Every structure is written in structure tokens, then in C-alpha cells.
């Protein structure tokens, strides 16, 4: 959920809206915001599944340190979505394990 107005920070800054695809579903995102922020705003919480037990993982540190939020972006696995900016038309998918195809 986006914080549209804030008692100290005021209204949310106007930025360019773009479309990105997440597991085949199209969502709107602000250009340049971290992928993770766009996903959370769209209610998506599970970013990847672990290698051995396929357990869900999501955002944890938000500053690029912990690597829990890695997803497959434009075919590349292990992309830290909390520090990777959104670009128009990005194809993002839940990373399964190390980034296996299925």
C-alpha cells in the first residue's frame, strides 16, 4: 500500500508511472523506485522460494545487504530487488531456488 499523504513528508512525489510484469501479471510502478517497493505496493510479498525446501522468502533488510529479496529479473537470477530500480517493461518472476527454469 502506498503512503499517499504523510504528516511530515507531505504528499507522495509525482513520478512517471510505468508497467512491469510480475509472474505474468502486469502491475504499475514508479520508474526508478526499487522493484521491491513496487511489488509491496501491489500486495506481492513472496519474492522467492528457497533451494531445498521451496520455502517463501521476501523483503528483509531493504538496503541490499541480506539478499533475501532476490528475484529473477529479465531472465537474470539473484537480482536484489530492494536496490534495483524499476524500468519500463521489466519482466520479473519469483525466483525458484537458484533460478531454475521451473
Amino acid at each position, binding site marked *: 500500500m*502506498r503512503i499517499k499523504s504523510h504528516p511530515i513528508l507531505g504528499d507522495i512525489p509525482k513520478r512517471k508511472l510505468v508497467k512491469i510484469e510480475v509472474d505474468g501479471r502486469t502491475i504499475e510502478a514508479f520508474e526508478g523506485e526499487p522493484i521491491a517497493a513496487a511489488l509491496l505496493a501491489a500486495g506481492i510479498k513472496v519474492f522467492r522460494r528457497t533451494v531445498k525446501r521451496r520455502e517463501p522468502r521476501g*523483503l528483509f533488510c*531493504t538496503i541490499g545487504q541480506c539478499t533475501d529479496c532476490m528475484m529473477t529479473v529479465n531472465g537474470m537470477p539473484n537480482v536484489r530487488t530492494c536496490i534495483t530500480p524499476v524500468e519500463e517493461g521489466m519482466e520479473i518472476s519469483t525466483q525458484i531456488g537458484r533460478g531454475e527454469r521451473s
Partner: protein
Amino acid sequence: MDAEVAVVGAGPAGLSASIEAARLGAKIVLIDENGKPGGQLFKQIHKFFGSMEHLAGLRGYDIGNKLWQRAMELKINVMLNTTVFGIFGDKTLGLLTTMGSEILRAQRIILATGGSENTIAFPGWTLPGVMGAGAAQTLINVHRVLPGKRILMVGSGNVGLIVSYQLLQAGAEVVALVEAAPKIGGYRVHAAKIQRAGVPIMVSHTVKRAHGRDYVEAATIVRVDDDLKMIPGTEKTFDVDTICLAVGLTPLSELAWMSGCKFIFVPTLGGHVPIHNEDLETTVEGIYVAGDIAGIEEASIAMEEGRLAGIAAAESLGYAREEATKLKKEIKERVQQLRRGPFGEDRYLAKQRIMKVAPR
């Protein structure tokens, strides 16, 4: 590429260090892996305490802007989106930029790499929805997205208290704040603010389990005894979608380890800390530390330590010898003031312990 002083990390400590050293005439290269400078300052939307010298009364992001502006005025060479992947023999830094890798030879290095949030393990702690309190703060104040609607905060240090308040400001509901110790860890005034807003602060309580299949749907908390053992039968379960962990930070010290700095284990300051003297110089000559890497404290202290390290590094290169002594003395007095009181006392003593084993 060459630099007289390479500063790693453009947060409050690194920016302050660069500004002081540059002001005294040293040639600086300031490096940060992020696309924006300021470290964690830009997510701090509360007003800082302290005296005027500490920019008290200003909000964190205002301080960040001020420091950045000053760095630009001084024409400091800043490399953003640049990771220092190693420090090799003879103060050679390996840099990874968006263009590739390059080498930076420095005469002095100031490490201001900050800290990373700690976590605690409990059943369900890996579920999406369990995150660092600092992470939630980044989301709401920088990216303007709520991590969830109903939050359980774990830990009552200043981070837990301040982030709880900021989550309320952002429109979330903080269902409870649990603290395993028998008393609140952070400043009274921060605690009072969230209590007034109706958030129960439950001391002698901890999180026992996060529930949910694919993400957090509820959390069970439990009372603990004086030895922090869970007391069976005292569990309570809340419907929450987010559990924030504010359970301290650890210095980010890889580059100091790699440089061969000697360390000391000081729990009060977050764990393994590079040994440093009053001028923040480590056991490796010419390598300094400042801010959270030198022991987890507050942004105001990080800035003072940064200044001190910046001045000391410039002084050692032959800049402003006379002025430096006076400047350093003033800063040391201000730092001592910041460490007064019940919260600073322990950290003051811990720092004294480090100085004792440090090279002169």
C-alpha cells in the same frame, strides 16, 4: 586513480569525514555503493537531539541534505554506485563501478561503512513479513510504501520506539511493542509518544512464533522471566501481517578485517569492533574508522567521529597542523557530552576499553 584520503561510505560519518578533511586541504575520494549519498540519514524523519553543533532540532534528512550540499561546495570527488570489494596490501582499494573494476591507491583510508541490522530466530522468522525495523523505516519514509497494516514491533531501543512512531505516522497500526528486558531500552520521550498513541509496550515479553503459510498472518508473544526464559501459559496471539525486529545492529567491518585491523569484542558496541585510538586510527597505520563500524552508536556521534577521523587523517598528511589540535579537542569534548547520561555511560566506558588497547 589516486587519492590522499579514500572515504568508504557516504553516510553521516563518511560525509562528515570527507568535509573536514577536504576543508583542511586533503584530496578526497568518497565512495558509496548506493545510488544516493546520506546512508540511513534520509529515512530519519524525526528531529535529532543534542546541541546546535550536532544540528539538533533538524530532521535526519535535513542533516543529510546539509552535509551533501557542503560536500558539493567543497567539490569532493564522490563515486556513487561504486562498491569497494576489497582493500589490498598498501592501501589499494578495488572498486566495482557500473563500468567495471578499477583500482584506487590511497594514502589514508577512512572506513565509514556503518552497521547492519541484527535479527533473532524464532519459528516462522523466515516468513515474508518479518523484517528489520530499519527496513520498514526505509520502506515508509524513503519509498513511501507500507510493509503491512498491522505491525508487531520487537525491541524497545530507540530504533524500535522511533520506527513504531513513524509507522503510526505512515498510517499503519502498531498492535504491540514487546521487549524481552524488564524495562524499556530507549529514551523515555520516544516511548511516551507511542504510548500516548495507544501502543502497548510490553516489557518482559518476546515473540515466540510467526504464523502463516506464505507470509505472516499472526504472531504469538510470550512473557519471559528474569533469565529471559519463556513462561508457558502466558502466550497471546495477535493478527498481524508484519513483524519488525529492532534488536540492535552489528558493525559492517569486512573491509577492516581484510585490511588486517585488530579487533576487540565489545557487546555494548554491537560485537567485534576494530580497535582504534582517540583519533579513530586503527591498528593499521593510516586506516581510520568512524561511525557505526567503530561501535554502534547514534548518527550525531557518527558525524563527530567522522569529523575527527577526517581531521586526523588530514593532519597526518601535513595539513593544518596547528588548527587540527584545537579542532580535535573541541570535537572530543562534544563527543563526551553526547555520551553523558544513563544511555551514553555504558558506551563511554566501552569506548574507553578500546582506547586502552589501541596504539597511541
